[in-house]
């Protein structure tokens, strides 16, 4: 590692690869450092990415590994074996499904094609500090210097922690995502869900699937596989877990919602990753220091809109903005100069949506969302649809379903809260 670089990027994930690509294309000498055997090998996500910001960050999607364009969205509220589903079929093609491992490899490839130097299998231990500013990175006995460092190390931000720039991760900061990728017949996917050859389905579900804990499930159709998984917020999980997280995912797979889709499938991979949770908690006090810019998950730039998560596009976009800020800094990488990054981020869709949806996390911490309301909803619909002779009037079905679960004023207040925060 003898060469000198203008910029060192920690982590060849979506944020780091985007920063490296946008810097390299402007002629910066960039070292893109990745701890995995290749870019993507440590990355995991639910299953879909919004295309437009990626297109902007990488000047088109070219040969990006796109599996299916999402045209169908499903949201299910689950109460044991009963569930209520809302399905939307539209013109779609705003987001696509893929394996993040492959997509990340493509992104890092774009950076390399633009002239960045990719260094794999190197773990960055800490930042190299000189005269109170970040001057490079340290890995084992090696030091590598640069004028400015982009931290794109991901959610488990050990480098920032060790440097004392952020507090240690706590239960409020993160959630856990666990996923099974299941190989199935390509034609079956299209037949089961009424999809065209390159069309996909995104499905989110909430309720008893997380044993009533804050969290939810996801299901995505890839080209010839399905991604099925769960997200559990650690805040509620430490004392609330009733069974192993693996059992929860497996019982989901063989349960009433999914068994018919996956029963002829073969498991391809079982993965897990942390996810930024409460955006107000995980966001570092600042995103720039002298000689350092923080991007992506490490900066807590994940948006939970309530019915979908976005983290890959926001990461890539933040990497692009970091590159812009570095370019505009014109060699002066002091915090006051790099502040431009915070400003650009705040004024971008990333900052605006983070701000807009900042309260969604509080909704998720309401246990009634995962217990009482799914029971009320399925209880109501059961009464409305399932009868032998005599039917229910809606009002009667509702008051019966509600009995013992939640009071009317409580429902009113919770609805008001949902309306305000969503």
């Amino acid at each position, binding site marked *: 590692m003898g060469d000198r670089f203008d910029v060192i990027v920690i982590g060849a994930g979506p944020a780091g690869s985007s920063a490296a690509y946008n810097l390299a294309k402007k002629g910066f000498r960039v070292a893109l450092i990745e701890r*995995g055997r290749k870019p993507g090998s440590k990355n995991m996500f639910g299953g879909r990415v919004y295309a437009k910001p990626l297109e902007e960050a990488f000047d088109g999607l070219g040969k990006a590994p796109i599996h299916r364009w999402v045209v169908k969205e499903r949201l299910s509220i689950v109460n044991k074996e009963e569930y209520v589903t809302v399905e939307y079929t539209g013109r779609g093609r705003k987001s696509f499904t893929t394996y993040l491992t492959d997509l990340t490899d493509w992104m890092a490839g774009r950076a390399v094609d633009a002239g960045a130097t990719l260094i794999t299998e190197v773990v960055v231990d800490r930042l190299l500090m000189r005269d109170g500013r970040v001057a490079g990175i340290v890995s084992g006995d090696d030091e590598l210097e640069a004028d400015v460092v982009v931290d794109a190390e991901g959610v488990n931000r050990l480098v920032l922690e060790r440097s004392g720039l952020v507090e240690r991760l706590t239960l409020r900061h993160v959630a856990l995502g666990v996923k099974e990728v299941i190989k199935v017949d390509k034609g079956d996917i299209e037949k089961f869900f009424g999809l065209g050859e390159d069309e996909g389905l995104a499905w989110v579900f909430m309720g008893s699937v997380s044993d009533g804990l804050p969290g939810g499930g996801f299901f995505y159709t890839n080209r010839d596989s399905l991604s099925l998984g769960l997200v559990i917020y650690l805040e509620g999980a430490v004392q609330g*877990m009733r069974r192993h997280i693996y059992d929860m995912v497996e019982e989901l797979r063989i349960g009433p919602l999914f068994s018919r889709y996956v029963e002829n499938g073969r498991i391809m991979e079982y993965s897990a990753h942390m996810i930024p949770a409460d955006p107000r908690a995980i966001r570092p006090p600042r995103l720039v220091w002298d000689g350092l810019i923080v991007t992506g998950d490490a900066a807590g730039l994940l948006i939970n809109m309530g019915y979908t998560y976005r983290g890959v596009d926001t990461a890539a976009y933040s990497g692009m903005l970091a590159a812009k800020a570095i370019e505009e800094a014109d060699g002066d990488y002091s915090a006051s100069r790099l502040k431009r990054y915070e400003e650009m981020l705040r004024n971008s869709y990333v900052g605006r949506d983070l701000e807009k949806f900042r309260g969604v996390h509080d909704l998720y911490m309401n246990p009634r969302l995962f217990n009482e309301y799914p029971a009320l909803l399925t209880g109501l619909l059961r009464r409305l649809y399932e009868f032998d002779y005599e039917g229910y009037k809606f009002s009667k079905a509702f008051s019966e379903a509600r009995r013992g679960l939640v009071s009317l004023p409580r429902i009113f207040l919770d609805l008001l809260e949902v309306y305000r925060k969503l």
Partner: protein
Amino acid sequence: MSSQAPEERKRRKIRLEDLLNNNIWDVDPRPHIKLDTSKCRDCNYKPCVLLCPTGCYTTHGDDVLFSYEGCVECGTCRVVCPEEAITWEYPRSGRGIHFRFS
């Protein structure tokens, strides 16, 4: 196995070990996670046991038994450990989990 109807077999859980057999690791001979097991005895919740997705933590009476080989490096154990008994580092030199389809 043969006495069971195929339908029944399909709807059965896959054992965690068998799930994990689909993954690829290059295990670092030097453990990247260190657990101070003396702190585990008095831990009431032992949240690592149910929350580690790959079952690296198991209980034996009041003790916690630990193996790092199946770790997928999510980092959850360190965050949920109430005793701060876990020292967590990334595996060196490209070792550890190698995701391909996630």
